[in-house]
């Protein structure tokens, strides 16, 4: 048997008379207080405490039933909260008017006062309390179908945990109506339980605090804790074992979810169908849908560092068994790899992904429902017309190698052009199977610009002037809008100088000539473009450049805010400036979809700037 001391704190609660202690506040529902304390905990009351070294990961999976449908483990919850609170970004978010207002509503202020009183009673602040009460881990588990939830805290400081529970139960008693007994206390093995409404239960067993919304679950947790041999438990579940082995990476927090109960219940049914009726979603996230279709479990990891946060989602997946209709996205035997990100300086965002556009188009009948197929077939016919009668799927898209890239970059404007709303340049980069096919794309580009000119001319708007050049190995067809008539350079259309460029087998279709040329020049230094290892798709965003482009659009953002929030100009400016300052604190954001032989993962990494 583990070395667990007996509890005496519940006895003290039983003996105390509480009726006159809290005066007129005693009619306040206890739920309000608990909710407020919880809200304050997650809402960001900040206290300065030195960050302690992170503790080693712990394990609470032995506490929960073998058929638990989820399990969350947080190794050091207090340090994680403290680290997050110390992010400059968090401080900026706290000063957002909405958050500031929410933290100063009368209910929250009352809650803060109550929390302060509780802290002074215990002699420690809430973060220290959390640090010592859950210093050896916070564990949450339960059964989705039975709506059973169990929580366990393993404390470093048993004495403090004991006092905290005792004090909390006293407060609950005092806050209850005089004619109501809020909870029953009863002995259970070496400990005692406080039972609320015959269901929710709190129990302390030495340095362990157990909570559950179902008494039976809590007693089973207590039995496993107290027994020499805990018997069959979650960690014996084959599904859990596999998830732990394959997805647990010693992160600060780890969540396991058994997907079978979710699948049985019909909750989030769309997630498990493996199909979507949205072609855009399929093209971007079809791989995830494919993996989720049959995955028995999934795991999430959270890593919190002083200057970054990483979230990883992992799910089992058999690369060998990728169905033919999804090979366009995952590659043959799941080996499709995204092209390496282009090193174009100053990019706001880049997306690189392995995608065989032709394979996608030609497999539409196997991917989508009838109505979507009908729409795509109609588009197919129209696109074939634009491309001079050549079949869009089997000839136009088939001329592209698998692998597409999107580059977004801030742009500079020519003299006299100063659009009120500044839109960054955006380019699509692809490689041709054969450079000779460039001609077909160039002609089609010219046809499209011609159609656009006809439409714009009909509306008395500026038209695009096309120019074709060939220099330094780059073949370029670029369009330019020129301010004329009643149109000055402030209109949104002057963000665009649509262009198509070819360099060797690279094709760049860009919203601006400058970006098309810049990427074309860059591709000269690339041989056979290297691919990113194991990445199927990568999105990389540079926070500084993003905030710069947003800052250039401050007037438009202020206008939006005035219209959407009815604010006056000064209020809107304050709001927008705060948003911009907050964004500036995000250095990079990367989302990486990776495929391995037996696992698919989505990794999000966000790094922050120091103030």
């Amino acid at each position, binding site marked *: 048997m583990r070395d667990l001391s007996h509890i005496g704190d519940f006895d003290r609660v039983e003996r105390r008379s509480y009726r006159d202690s809290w005066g007129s506040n005693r009619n306040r529902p206890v739920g309000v207080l608990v909710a407020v304390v919880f809200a304050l905990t997650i809402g960001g009351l900040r206290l300065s405490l030195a960050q302690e070294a992170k503790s080693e990961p712990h394990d609470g999976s032995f506490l929960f039933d073998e058929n638990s449908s989820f399990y969350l483990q947080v190794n050091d919850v207090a340090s994680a909260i403290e680290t997050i609170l110390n992010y400059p970004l968090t401080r900026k978010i706290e000063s957002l008017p909405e958050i500031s207002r929410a933290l100063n509503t009368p209910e929250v202020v009352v809650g803060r006062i109550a929390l302060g009183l509780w802290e002074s009673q215990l002699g420690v602040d809430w973060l220290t309390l959390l640090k010592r009460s859950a210093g050896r881990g916070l564990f949450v588990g339960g059964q989705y179908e039975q709506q059973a939830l169990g929580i366990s805290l393993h404390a470093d400081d048993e004495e403090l945990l004991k006092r905290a529970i005792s004090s909390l139960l006293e407060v609950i008693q005092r806050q209850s109506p005089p004619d109501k007994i809020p909870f029953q206390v009863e002995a259970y093995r070496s400990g005692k339980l406080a039972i609320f409404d015959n269901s929710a239960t709190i129990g302390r067993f030495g340095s362990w605090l157990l909570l559950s919304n179902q008494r039976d679950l809590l007693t089973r947790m207590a039995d496993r804790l107290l027994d020499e041999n805990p018997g069959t438990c979650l960690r014996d579940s084959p599904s859990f074992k596999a998830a732990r082995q394959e997805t647990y990476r010693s992160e600060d927090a780890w969540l396991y979810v058994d997907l079978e109960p979710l699948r049985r219940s019909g909750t989030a049914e769309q997630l498990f169908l493996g199909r979507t009726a949205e072609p855009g979603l399929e093209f971007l996230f079809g791989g995830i849908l494919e993996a989720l279709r049959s995955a028995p479990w999934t795991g999430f990891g959270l890593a919190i560092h002083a200057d970054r946060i990483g979230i990883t989602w992992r799910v089992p997946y058999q690369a060998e068994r990728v169905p033919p209709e999804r090979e366009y996205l995952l590659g043959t035997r799941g080996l499709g790899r995204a092209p390496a990100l282009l090193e174009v300086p100053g990019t706001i965002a880049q997306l690189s992904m392995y995608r065989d556009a032709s394979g996608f188009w030609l497999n539409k009948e196997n991917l989508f429902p009838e109505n979507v197929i009908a729409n795509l077939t109609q588009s197919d016919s129209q696109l074939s017309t634009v491309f001079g009668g050549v079949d869009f799927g089997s000839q136009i898209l088939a001329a592209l190698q698998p692998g597409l890239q999107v580059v977004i970059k801030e742009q500079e404007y020519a003299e006299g052009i100063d659009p009120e709303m500044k839109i960054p340049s955006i380019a699509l980069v692809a490689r041709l199977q054969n450079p000779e096919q460039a001609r077909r794309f160039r002609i089609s580009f010219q046809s499209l610009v011609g159609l656009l000119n006809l439409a714009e001319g009909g509306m008395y708007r500026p038209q695009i002037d096309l120019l074709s050049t060939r220099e330094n190995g780059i073949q370029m067809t670029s369009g330019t809008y020129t301010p004329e008539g009643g149109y000055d350079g402030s*209109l949104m259309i002057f963000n665009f100088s649509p262009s198509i460029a070819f360099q060797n087998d690279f094709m760049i279709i860009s919203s601006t000539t400058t970006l098309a040329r810049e990427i074309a020049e860059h591709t000269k230094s690339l041989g056979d473009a290297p691919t990113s290892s194991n990445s199927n798709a990568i999105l990389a965003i540079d926070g500084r450049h993003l905030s710069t482009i947003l800052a250039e659009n401050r007037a438009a953002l202020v206008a939006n805010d005035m*219209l959407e929030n009815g604010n006056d100009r000064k209020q809107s400016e304050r709001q927008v400036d705060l948003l911009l300052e907050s964004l500036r604190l995000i250095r990079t954001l990367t989302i990486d979809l990776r495929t391995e032989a037996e696992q698919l993962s989505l990794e999000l990494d966000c790094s922050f700037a120091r103030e």
Partner: protein
Amino acid sequence: MAANLWEPWEPSPQEPWDRRRAAHLMRRAGFGGTVRQIDELVNLGFDKALAMIRESAGLEAFEAEMTPLEKSLVSRQEPQALASWWLLRMAKTPHPLLEKTTFFWHGHFATSADKVADSAAMLRQYRLLREHALGRFEPLVQGISRDPAMLIYLDSTDNRKTRPNENYARELLELFCLGAGNYSERDIKELARCFTGWEVRQNQFQFNPHQHDSGIKTIFDQSGPFGGDDAVGIVLRHPAAARHIARKLVRFFCTDDDVVDEEFQPLAELLRENDFDIGKILAVILSSRFFWSEKSLGKKVRGPVDLAIGLIRLFDLNANMNDVRGRLAGLGQLPMFPPNVKGWEGGTSWINASTFVERINLVQFLVERIPAGSAGPLSLARVTRSQDEESRRVIEDLIDVWFAQRPPTETVRELMELASQAGKTADMIKRVLPAMAAIPEFHLA
């Protein structure tokens, strides 16, 4: 007898200058106001209140705040956003009479961004309407005759001497200046010749002398080598012109009911005597016995814009104007998007089984924007003994300032009962106002 209706009204013990009348003035000469603003008008007295309504204090600062917004919206080429922008102006302007009269002219010279599809052109037309809203009518008509948005809307961008375009000429006579029955088909054809060579190129008006028919035209028995500006002058000198404009002003500012010719004829004469000075004639209307009589009080159905902006101003709300815009589109009145060249029909056409429900939903949507835990501007500096008493007084306030006709006593009692069960003021208003919106009198202005 009829002439007396346009003579100045004076408050009297039988017809006192009180909240009901001050609210009537704010609704018709603007979009309503808060209880506090209406009480301030009452305290000013009738003459000063009337003068204040016509003042433009604070307009310069307001324009400085709104002008950068215009530039931003025009650059986006999203005419829908211009509608939101105009709603914001209506909600916040310190000179509601100017904005309301501009809106009147927008309905009169109806032009839809749906067809014009050019934010800059729509904004230019808006500015033209606002510039002349309270000025003389003739320069406004001269301006609108050259206005690219109007000419695009009426397919009149090309007007060649060999093939005169009659669209604008027809609407100028029928809708804008005279009304049906006061001209002949020949007048339309001759008028169209006057406007030949008036073109729109790259959304700018231009006069093309090569396409102008400089021959002799005969309009209403007057002959000469008239151009477009001459033609406008001839049309406005027609006896029907003053009657037509006076009738439309009375219908917009006073009553949805038909007004017999004898009743507004004196107003038409005043309009002509004052060289079609709209500001002066509006001052006559707003101070007239007609405006303050039962012929006008509560004799209009609130249009969707009046309903939405009225509530926003009543509670001094910060609402999402894009959302409000979407709801107004569903109710059939979206600024910048009138349904056709005749503008909005108004009156009882605003309400049918479907729009009635949508109007209640709009009220619900807007009152939800009242900040929680706040009594808002309804919270007056007064001492009430209990929440119950506060609720009753708030209901009375709302009835005074919003209802143009007091609801039946039994309905008021039920509202009081509902209010007494609804808790704090803001919560109470959120619960009571949608119930109020189900009362027919709620929708009268």
